[in-house]
């Protein structure tokens, strides 16, 4: 009896290896897809890491200086020196601002009225006008803030001689990301996105492809257990995904200077959990759909879009209306994103993320059970 189960196990093992090997052959043969599979995370990391900064800088500003006196010139020099602004030129008439806005050549304008210096020293107060192109509200807001800070700075310098009493000096410290780079926010998001793409879409498509071409039927008639079909489909994508995670982490450490502050082992363990969630989702989609096109559309619409929208890395969840906020809780990528951020950036241990892990685990179990169950019933 013992030998027969041993033999049985051996056969299952060799069946399994044959299947896994075949899956790898599929994946490796489609060079274009493979290229994109590995190219996408690399390009995204580079774009997010270097090209995209939420920081506003080098904003084009136009100056209308009716005063042309000491104070106005000093403030203009300060603006010129700031990294936030780039002076596009001087204008004479007010209408020039509007036409420049319409051409999109400037983002903000500053207007000094005549007798600026005089007003400042004589009645002790003078007016400056800031006009921002608020068709981009965040930039407008930030630019007005920066310009205000520059002018206030000048104000303080002027008043220093007078020694203002009761000064409160706020001292700010930026935690985790002192240079205010975009990468710490984006890298965990890209990880969630890429894993979603690889696992859900690729798994779903590869299973549906077997259905479409009729090979699934042949597999089901063979003594190969259906559960093993699923399992051996999942393994190559699990591996590919882990390679992708590794690439992303290597890039972020060596190219973006964004070290993994927490435990690398924990990061990989949590990633594996999330990958299994995605694989279960992919299997579920493949069970429910009959054509590759539909599988792709559902993966894109149903999985990638919510990941982009609700994981919190591109769009702030706390600003959403409550139905969307509530909805975001059932998106697994949201929890994965929080976990990765905690481990990678904040350097926290398991004790800080056990709750998120538990939720993710629950979601995973749920999808795994549902997808395996529907896979079995489909055989009927």
């Amino acid at each position, binding site marked *: 009896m013992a030998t027969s189960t041993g033999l049985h196990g051996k056969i299952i093992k060799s069946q399994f290896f044959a299947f896994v090997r075949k899956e790898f052959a599929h994946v490796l043969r489609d060079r274009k*897809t493979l290229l994109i599979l590995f190219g996408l995370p690399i390009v995204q990391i580079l774009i997010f890491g270097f*090209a995209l900064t939420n920081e506003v800088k080098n904003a084009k500003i136009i100056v209308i200086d009716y005063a042309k006196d000491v104070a106005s010139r000093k403030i203009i020099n300060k603006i010129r020196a700031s990294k936030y602004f780039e002076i596009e030129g001087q204008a004479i008439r007010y209408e020039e601002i509007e036409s420049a806005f319409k051409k999109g050549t400037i983002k903000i304008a500053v207007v000094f009225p005549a007798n600026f210096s005089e007003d*400042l020293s004589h009645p002790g107060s003078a007016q400056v006008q*800031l006009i921002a192109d608020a068709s981009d509200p*965040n930039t407008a807001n930030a630019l007005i803030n920066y310009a205000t800070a520059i002018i206030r700075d000048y*104000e303080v310098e002027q008043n220093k001689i007078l020694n203002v009493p009761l*000064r409160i000096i706020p*001292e700010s410290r930026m935690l985790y990301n002192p240079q205010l780079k975009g990468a710490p926010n984006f890298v965990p998001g890209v990880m969630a996105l890429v894993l979603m793409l690889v696992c859900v879409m690729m798994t779903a498509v590869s299973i549906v492809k077997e259905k479409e071409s009729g090979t699934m039927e042949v597999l089901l008639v063979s003594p190969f257990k259906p559960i093993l079909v699923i399992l051996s489909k999942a393994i190559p994508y699990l591996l590919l995904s882990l390679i992708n995670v590794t690439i992303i982490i290597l890039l972020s450490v060596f190219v973006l200077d964004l070290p993994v502050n927490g435990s690398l082992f924990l990061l990989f363990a949590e990633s594996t959990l999330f990958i299994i969630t995605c694989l279960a989702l992919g299997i579920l989609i493949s069970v429910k759909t009959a054509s590759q096109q539909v599988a792709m559309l559902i993966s894109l619409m149903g999985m990638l879009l919510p990941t982009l929208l609700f994981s919190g890395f591109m769009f702030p969840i706390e600003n959403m209306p409550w139905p969307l906020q509530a909805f975001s809780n059932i998106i697994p990528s949201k929890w994965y994103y929080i976990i990765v*951020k905690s481990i990678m950036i904040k350097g926290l241990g398991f004790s800080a993320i056990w709750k998120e892990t538990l939720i993710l685990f629950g979601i995973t179990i749920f999808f795994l059970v549902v997808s395996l169950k529907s896979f079995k019933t489909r055989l009927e």
Partner: protein
Amino acid sequence: MQKEFRQIFRNKSIVVMIAFMPIVQLIILPLAADYEVKNINIATVDHDHSTYSQKLISKISGSKYFNLAGYNQRYSDAMELIELDKADLILEIPAGFEKNLVRENQQKLFIAVNAINGVKANLGAAYLSNIIRNFNDDIRLQWMQPSKSNDISTIDIVSSNWYNPLLNYKVFMVPGILGILVTMVGGFLSALNIVKEKEVGTIEQINVTPVKKHHFILGKLIPFWILGNVVFSIGLVVSWLVYGIVVSGSLLVLYSFVSLYMFAVLGLGLLVSTFCETQQQAMFIMFFLMTIFILMGGLFTSIESMPQWAQVVTWFNPLGYLIKVMRMVILKGSGFADIKIQLLIIAAFAIVLNTLAVLNYKKTN
């Protein structure tokens, strides 16, 4: 051409996509994509327990930007709130703050910001500094005789936000999303459609008929061109009905640009389709390109802030021009004269992409 239309409308997934995309993208995305920094959670650590510290904290929690997430005794407790993402900012008031302020005329406050999200951190810190400055002015006024304050010269800053005085983020997002929509319909669907014919083998069927190549290509492109314009119009109506966004420029300018742009993306779709054998590949390549286009198109982050090399990359991104022009015409009412450079560039895109596609198409067949 009739055949194309029939096929498009028979294919349920495409119809669903056409109906679904504008709705999801135009209604959910702007709701979700609210980047306005508000609801900042602040944790305070008050070592002073004085009237001033209480006043400052109540002033902060009274502002529309901040929610008080915790009133802590120890810094480590506040730090824990940050780790759990329950707080974005910590304000630490040192012991003896009130006493020392009066005695030494100067006192420090400590702010720690969770800076993983750079924008939020920056603006949050700026808002908080503003409130502290106001608070500072308040107590200064209490302490000083009115006559003395005349010695200080103040600059009165009047700021105005044109085109979007309420700083409504949706106004900013919607035109950009419309741009993405048009690109998806034009690029994605046309590429998928042609590759599908290739996969199924009907393309060979058509190649043996006396239909001329350019007729075939035109027959493929024109329905999608019309479809793109229809989707765009639906999008405009939706954004008017839902967000009250009215095109402030001329519709003629807008449609001319969009129509020209459609030719450019259709050319792109065609070009992609000549490279791909399967729908899966076409889908992946288009997805890849779209990701780059959207990220580098200035939808979320402004192009001016990018490093020089990245800005050079954006010159080759047609979507970037579309998003820019959409915002210019819809929000600012720019006319032909304002967008003529973009118009020329997109025309060049259309010519180059279509020529490449046709050349490549001939070669592969």
